[in-house]
């Protein structure tokens, strides 16, 4: 029986055989909890290699082919598509049942002081946050895996860049990433032929590139998981699945079902033509086509089931429609529910034998939660006024960015903060929304009538915004634990967060704003607001960049970390975490690509260990 609520989309050759709870098999090889970037990649790798996988997703089934609002203009939406508490990123954002608050599923903060709160974005849908994310896919560089060795702060990873480089290549070939190889410091090249060609820069991006040179800012093509051309289904499958003709043929078919970007509609809505990566369009269809993957949606996992021998034998979950608690078993359990949600499952798996939760002999579960440092500044650029009308929709997100460029100065201790940031752009003649013309008053002092209309034409497209995305160093004051009192509507104890930025992050945020102000001035523009000298006023609240990682960090010993380099918990050898939880640092690079590369590597390790009979 199918639980899918949407009709089969016309172009999809691969059925989506989601199961209902009564069709669960009595045993699986692997249970994967979560269906986003980490869960999607884990299930894909395992299912393609013949492993029987059950994926449990807390939210509802979701079909991008039939549910994505591709060309809907804002006038068709309630409130012109403006954001509301129901849809925090606007009406047409892909997120289902999600946001920084999920009804009936609270979390708490230990402190209400400014700067001490963490806001936790979740979504409750198949594919999770991959459906709406920005698709920015940057590799961590060699420094990013050895930050402690470099400056004495935080932790080194138990792996090097070289250990993951091959997996970055594989993920990029599978999902399709545009970008270029620039050979810049700690900004790795992909192997030849892996990246897709980047789209041309827009007017504001070109203008920034030109004037950014005066400040030494390298404006280069960004890497995003959007197909600028169709994937090469003739050669890539054999590279990804050598000696596995069936996997190759399934993947080739799945790749052929993905269209190249047609340079319209924002990626945050999702993509019905599968031109960008989301787990639901890229990982899950081929994995399902193998017949090795069952997906059960509306299954909210509450805790692990442990054997007397100290192995995970399965999970308990609440079937959301019937509100019944159920169990399912497997040889291996993989938590990939998003860093904090996976931590929550570990901590809630308490028993006499595991008084602090499972896989927590180190006491490190929940520790070292990190987000990305965010600060922004916007301005108006006279040179961009009155440009001839032209289409700047492009790839539905940025085409260029500025990687961190002050490694030498920072390493010499000249900056006052230890880690770097990259710069993302918002520019151009985007589809007007509710806020597009709000800054006009600032420019023209407040007008109405024909003069207002003329100003709108003149200034449209001349506003530009820069956002810094920087590395946060893990600290002892940023962690989560189980709230002793509060439970969610399923009766599951919730997380309580503790949060604190260090001066490294605050100073970095102030540096971001000063850089943006200098850049806007260099372009002959006007800054919307003066840059904050006090970084604690510039920095966005913890959790607002939605890059939370850590909480079950990987390391080289069981004493000071939760998992080994394979994302395998030290304490329970058939328990793995393949989301952001094992990150022991959070480079300025957006985490999703690294989550997928680590998940693939971890799944390869599971395959090997299963073959050897160790798992």
């Amino acid at each position, binding site marked *: 029986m199918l639980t899918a609520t949407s009709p089969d989309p016309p172009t999809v050759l691969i059925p989506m055989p989601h199961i209902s709870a009564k069709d669960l098999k009595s045993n699986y090889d692997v249970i994967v909890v979560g269906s986003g970037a980490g869960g999607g990649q884990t299930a894909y790798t395992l299912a393609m290699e013949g492993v029987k996988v059950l994926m449990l997703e807390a939210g509802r089934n979701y079909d991008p082919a039939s*549910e*994505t*609002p591709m060309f*809907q*203009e804002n*006038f*068709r939406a*309630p*409130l*012109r598509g403006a954001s*509301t*508490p*129901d849809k925090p990123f606007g*009406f*047409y954002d892909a997120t*289902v*049942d999600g946001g920084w608050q*999920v*009804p009936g599923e609270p979390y708490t903060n230990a402190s209400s002081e400014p700067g001490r709160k963490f806001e936790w974005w979740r979504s409750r849908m198949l594919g999770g946050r991959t459906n709406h994310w920005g698709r920015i896919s940057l590799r961590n560089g060699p420094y990013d895996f050895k930050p402690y060795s470099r400056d004495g702060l935080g932790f080194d990873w138990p792996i090097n860049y070289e250990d993951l480089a091959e997996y970055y290549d594989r993920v990029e070939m599978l999902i399709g990433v545009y970008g270029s190889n620039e050979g810049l410091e700690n900004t790795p090249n992909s192997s030849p032929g892996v990246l897709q060609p980047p*789209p*041309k*820069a827009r007017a504001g991006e070109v203008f920034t590139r*030109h004037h950014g040179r005066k400040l030494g800012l390298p404006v280069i093509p960004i890497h995003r998981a959007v197909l600028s051309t169709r994937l090469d289904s003739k050669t890539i499958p054999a590279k990804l699945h050598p000696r596995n003709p069936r996997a190759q043929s399934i993947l080739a078919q799945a790749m052929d079902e993905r269209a190249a*970007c*047609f*340079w*319209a*509609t924002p990626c945050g*809505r999702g993509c019905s033509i599968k031109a960008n990566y989301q787990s639901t369009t890229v990982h899950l269809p081929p994995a399902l086509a193998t017949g090795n993957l069952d997906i059960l949606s509306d299954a909210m996992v509450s805790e692990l089931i442990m054997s007397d021998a100290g192995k995970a034998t399965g999970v308990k979950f609440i079937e959301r429609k019937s509100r019944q608690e159920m169990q399912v078993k497997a040889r291996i359990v993989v938590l990939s529910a998003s860093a904090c949600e996976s931590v929550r499952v570990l901590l809630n798996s308490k028993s006499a034998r595991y008084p602090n939760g499972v896989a927590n002999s180190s006491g490190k579960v929940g520790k070292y939660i990190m987000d990305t440092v965010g600060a922004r500044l916007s301005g108006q650029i006279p*040179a*961009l006024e*009155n*440009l*001839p*009308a*032209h*289409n700047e*929709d*492009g790839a539905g997100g940025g085409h260029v960015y500025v990687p961190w460029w002050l490694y030498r100065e920072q390493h010499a201790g000249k900056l006052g903060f230890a880690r770097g940031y990259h710069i993302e752009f918002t520019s151009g*003649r*985007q*589809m*007007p*929304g*509710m806020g*597009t*013309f*709000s800054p*006009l*008053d*600032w420019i023209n*002092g*407040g007008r*109405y*009538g024909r003069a207002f*209309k003329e100003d*709108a*034409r003149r200034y*449209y*497209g001349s506003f530009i915004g820069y956002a810094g995305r920087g590395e946060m160093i893990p600290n002892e004051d940023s962690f989560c634990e189980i709230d002793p009192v509060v439970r969610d509507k399923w009766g599951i104890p919730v997380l309580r967060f503790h949060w604190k930025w260090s001066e490294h992050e605050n100073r970095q945020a102030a540096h971001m704003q000063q850089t943006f102000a200098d850049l806007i001035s260099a372009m002959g523009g006007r800054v919307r607001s003066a840059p904050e000298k006090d970084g604690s006023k510039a920095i966005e609240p913890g959790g607002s960049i939605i890059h939370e990682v850590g909480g079950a960090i990987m390391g080289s010993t069981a004493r000071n970390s939760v998992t080994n380099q394979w994302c395998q918990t030290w304490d329970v050898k058939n328990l793995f975490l393949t989301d952001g939880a094992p990150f022991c640092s959070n480079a300025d690079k957006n985490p999703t690509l690294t989550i997928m590369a680590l998940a693939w590597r971890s799944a390869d390790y599971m395959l090997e260990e299963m073959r050897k009979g160790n798992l």
Partner: protein
Amino acid sequence: MNSPLSGRLDRRAAIKWMLAGTATVMVIDRATFAQSSPVSGGKGYGTDPDLIKEYKPGDFWPLTFTDHQRRTATMLCSVIIPADERSPSAGELLVQDFIDEWISAPYPGHDRDRERILSGLVWLDGESKTRFGRVFIELKEGQQSAICADICREEVKQPEWVEPSRFFKRFRDLTAGGFYTTREGMLDVGYVGNVPLATFEGPGPEVLAKLGLA
């Protein structure tokens, strides 16, 4: 200035006091917004609305404007964004109905806009009567414009125009948001996207030349 607590109070002063946000707001609100019911606590469109469907104001929550308020809002929309050779007026594109939807929405912040807009519309009639002896929609174009000219600026010197100018700014923001999200409004400013393209060519030579980067 009259105190709302002392003796008789003319309508104009009362509204000014109301707009200034004194303790009497609640009392005067009752009279001014007699027709309207409170919006707080109502239901929105939820966290999983159908994104493919097309919606119109009133689909999710009841609207507010009385006939007179709607006619006044229509007129003000069209004073702010009048018809010209490139596009129709905001009133012709029914932006007033969007504003009605906005101020009726059961989300945080919208109740504040509701109070500001409804109070402002009352003020507008009061000011029109004081200056020209008629309500706003009955004024000549030049008379309407004369009032707007006094409250349209970002920096307002006269204390009695501070609150009305806040109302005007918010109304103008909503009008612009409503107008430039229509097809006519998007075309007016030269938004030519939202169409599938075979290739993305980036800025053409004409654009680069204007940027001095040809």
